[in-house]
């Protein structure tokens, strides 16, 4: 396309784009290739001791969360789609709110609520006069506890996709099935769910990816999984190659999910009926059922959002005055400025790649961008390891080179600096930003470029007067989404942060690890509030679609 001059094979823009894309793909490629140099001794040791635990716990966690999120999300979606009950339209977006809470924060809340010294057990003991060991109470700090916590915040993935899929099913399907003698229940089982299956599976796969990626929850609950194992191998054993290989193994599991998810998503289009749909009329069940439905939705909302929020507010009320000191605000500033910087840098990268693709599809650039986009599916721990390896190598080589030539030591130039963090964030969150930019750019049709030119604009004029105004909303949401994601990110920040550099997420994690849950409430609350922004954005987008 000759609208904005397409770059020649060796033009400056192309080299910049190519270099950026290759660098971003590097961590993932390095982790993958680390498998080619197996560390037999370390593997032997891991296999003898903890490897089986890692594999089994990670798998049980992912499948438990997947199953739970699938059942909970699908049933909630069906309730909100098919039945009319009090508050139904509110629940349609209220039930998305748990997405705002990082899993590790909900884990802290429930630990505070449910453990031995927590309000629930204390009340039980006081009411019945029990002492320690007199009664059985489920242990929240367990694999089962971790699965429950993750289900509570991850079911919205399934809920959202399943509800959209149900909504796309036309009234005539329901009527056709009724006219063939099927009851509404049979319709649900035989038509609605099978038709929504790709969407449900896609949501389930997303929830399972998040479960594989979780670090904060399992670490806090003392459950050994891949992510905690990688962390321990890296810091405890100091074996970076082995950590990379563990990461590669975890990556294989996640890649399986990515393929499965993409396969499901392709099918969604196939199942989608192109014709104009008439939305299904909702069933109005009997009085008691209506209130049962209401209670069900309320219960999930309370467990997934209101209760943890109340717990945090309560703690923040207790500890707020002493927590909100100068240090806290410095922390908040650290977090917000880091997140904003990362969001802006990632936006620039995303625009670079999106425009490169729009002007001229170039396989040499597309390939590394596709690899880098996988970063979003990968656990922060894996990305951190993948980032650290090349940066450390670069630092060491540069140091050695300069030592040999000039006798100066550069020390650690990149690893252990904010650069390393920003780089890892770029790998992890490029896909989020790129998706927004590409969606926005797709709305600017090539003919609009031409219209702008034929009405007297230069290529730069087309960019500033046609593209930018039309992209504004997409660019804004790209920045916002990445901003919040970075704010919530825990494991990569934990591994890569410069010495003594704290963020809200890190502080929350450290305080909670020190059993100072109440003190952790203030930073956690700030993360939660910020996390609400994208959820609101999301529900508004969905409402607009429905309207």
């Amino acid at each position: 396309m000759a609208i904005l001059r397409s770059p020649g094979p060796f033009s400056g823009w192309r080299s910049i784009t190519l270099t950026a894309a290759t660098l971003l793909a590097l961590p993932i490629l390095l982790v993958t290739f680390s498998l080619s140099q197996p560390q037999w001794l370390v593997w032997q040791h891991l296999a003898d001791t903890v490897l089986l635990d890692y594999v089994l716990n990670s798998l049980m966690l992912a499948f438990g969360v997947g199953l739970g999120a699938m059942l909970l999300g699908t049933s909630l979606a069906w309730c909100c789609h098919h039945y009319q009950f009090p508050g139904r339209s509110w629940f349609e977006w209220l039930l998305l709110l748990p997405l705002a809470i990082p899993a590790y924060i909900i884990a802290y809340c429930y630990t505070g609520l449910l453990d031995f010294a927590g309000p629930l057990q204390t009340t039980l003991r006081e009411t019945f006069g029990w002492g320690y060991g007199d009664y059985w109470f489920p242990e929240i700090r367990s694999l089962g506890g971790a699965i429950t916590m993750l289900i509570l915040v991850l079911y919205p993935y399934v809920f959202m996709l399943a509800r959209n899929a149900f909504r796309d099913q036309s009234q005539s399907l329901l009527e056709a099935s009724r006219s063939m003698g099927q009851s509404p229940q049979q319709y649900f089982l035989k038509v609605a769910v099978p038709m929504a299956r790709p969407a449900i599976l896609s949501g389930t796969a997303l929830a399972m990816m998040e479960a594989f990626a979780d670090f904060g929850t399992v670490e806090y609950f003392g459950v050994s999984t891949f992510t905690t194992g990688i962390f321990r191998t890296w810091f405890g054993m100091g074996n970076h190659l082995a950590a990379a290989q563990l990461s590669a193994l975890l990556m294989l599991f996640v890649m399986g999910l990515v393929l499965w998810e993409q396969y499901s998503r392709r099918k969604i289009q196939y199942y989608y009926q192109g014709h104009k749909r008439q939305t299904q009329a909702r069933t109005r069940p009997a009085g008691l059922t209506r209130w049962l439905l209401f209670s069900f939705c309320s219960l999930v909302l309370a467990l997934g959002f209101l209760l943890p929020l109340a717990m945090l507010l309560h703690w923040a009320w207790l500890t707020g005055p002493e927590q909100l000191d100068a240090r806290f605000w410095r922390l908040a500033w650290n977090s917000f400025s880091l997140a904003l910087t990362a969001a802006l840098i990632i936006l620039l990268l995303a625009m670079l790649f999106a425009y490169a693709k729009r002007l001229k599809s170039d396989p040499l650039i597309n390939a590394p961008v596709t690899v880098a986009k996988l970063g979003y599916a990968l656990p922060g721990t894996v990305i951190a390891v993948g980032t650290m390896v090349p940066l450390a190598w670069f630092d060491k080589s540069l140091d050695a080179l300069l030592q040999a030539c000039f006798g100066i030591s550069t020390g650690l130039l990149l690893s252990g600096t904010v650069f390393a963090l920003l780089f890892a964030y770029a790998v992890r969150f490029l896909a989020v930003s790129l998706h927004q930019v590409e969606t926005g750019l797709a709305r600017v049709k090539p003919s609009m470029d031409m219209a702008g030119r034929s009405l007297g604009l230069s290529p730069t004029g087309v960019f500033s007067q046609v593209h930018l105004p039309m992209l504004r909303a997409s660019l804004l949401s790209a920045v916002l989404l990445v901003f919040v994601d970075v704010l919530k990110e825990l494991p990569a920040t934990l591994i890569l942060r410069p010495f003594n550099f704290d963020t809200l997420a890190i502080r929350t994690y450290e305080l909670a690890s020190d059993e100072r849950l109440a003190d952790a409430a203030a930073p956690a609350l700030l993360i939660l509030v910020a996390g609400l922004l994208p959820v609101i954005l999301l529900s508004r987008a969905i409402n607009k679609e429905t309207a």
Partner: protein
Amino acid sequence: MLQLEHVAISYGTNKVVQGFDLTLQAGEIGCLLGASGCGKTSVLRAIAGFEPISEGRIDLHEKNVSRPGFSVAPEKRQIGMVFQDFALFPHLTVAENIAFGIRSLPKAQQRERVDSLLTLVELQGLGDRYSHALSGGQQQRVALARAMAPKPDLLLLDEPFSSLDTELRGSLATQVRQILKQQGITALLVTHDKSEAFSMADKLGVMDQGRLLQWGCPATLFSRPASLHVADFIGKGATVKVEYLGDGRIAGDVGNWPLVSNVSVASGTSLSLLLRPHQVKTDPTSELKARVLRQIFRGADYLYELQLPGGELLLSSMPLDCEFSPGQSLGLSLDLTNALLFDAANGHNVLLESQ
């Protein structure tokens, strides 16, 4: 005003347009007609400056704007363009869209020009709307007004009516022609719809596989098409094989007929005779018989698909009182006054321009 000389456009090694010559006088409306993928949109884009040309030259007002390795930027050409999808900017109102190309004028003048254009395209009072709140036909007229606002030397229209429904198309085409003529605008449009082309064009060209087969006024293209392909594209009809016997006579399955005009071929040459539906009439006394295959009711008349004993097909339009059922055999007479004859080997018109 606009002149294309031997223009070729290539994508890589693939020549999508070649040997393209075209001249458009000031105030004329030209139209390129062709099936999709024939290269007509590429020609339009090259004239607008969005596509480099690999051979030949494009002149505007006797000034060269495109030649191989050289191209005046689109924004410097004073060419307005109306796009198939209208390409209205969704973030601007109708008035802002129309004023987009005249931003450098003082505000008051902009407003005046926008108002007069809104009146011209009969959209008074809709200036504050956004384009998505308009119907397809209204959007089309906004796009036209926007392209006309900077008073371009030449207006290009790329399938301007194809995204509208059929009923709207005809009336809008007439309306747009009226507006262009009233304003004395030189315009070139491309379309694949011949009725659209007929209702718009002063000059018409038929394109096929990157070549301009014929360029002239619509009546000429209809009555004296240069080739069978042009004739086929321009109007319905059926071809039958005949042989030139010499002495102004042809013979074939349709019988032995005298010709009104002279032909340029030697006797014994195989020819294709194109018969339009109105040239085939029923005549009970005729020896030429055909069997009715299908009867199609068209409101004002019937269109019959007929089969000659030798297997060749004919089309015939007949008044509503001529009612025949499939399978029935009927006698036919042919009106060969304006009959078209083409060389069966290369499809060229063989009639001499004698009348």
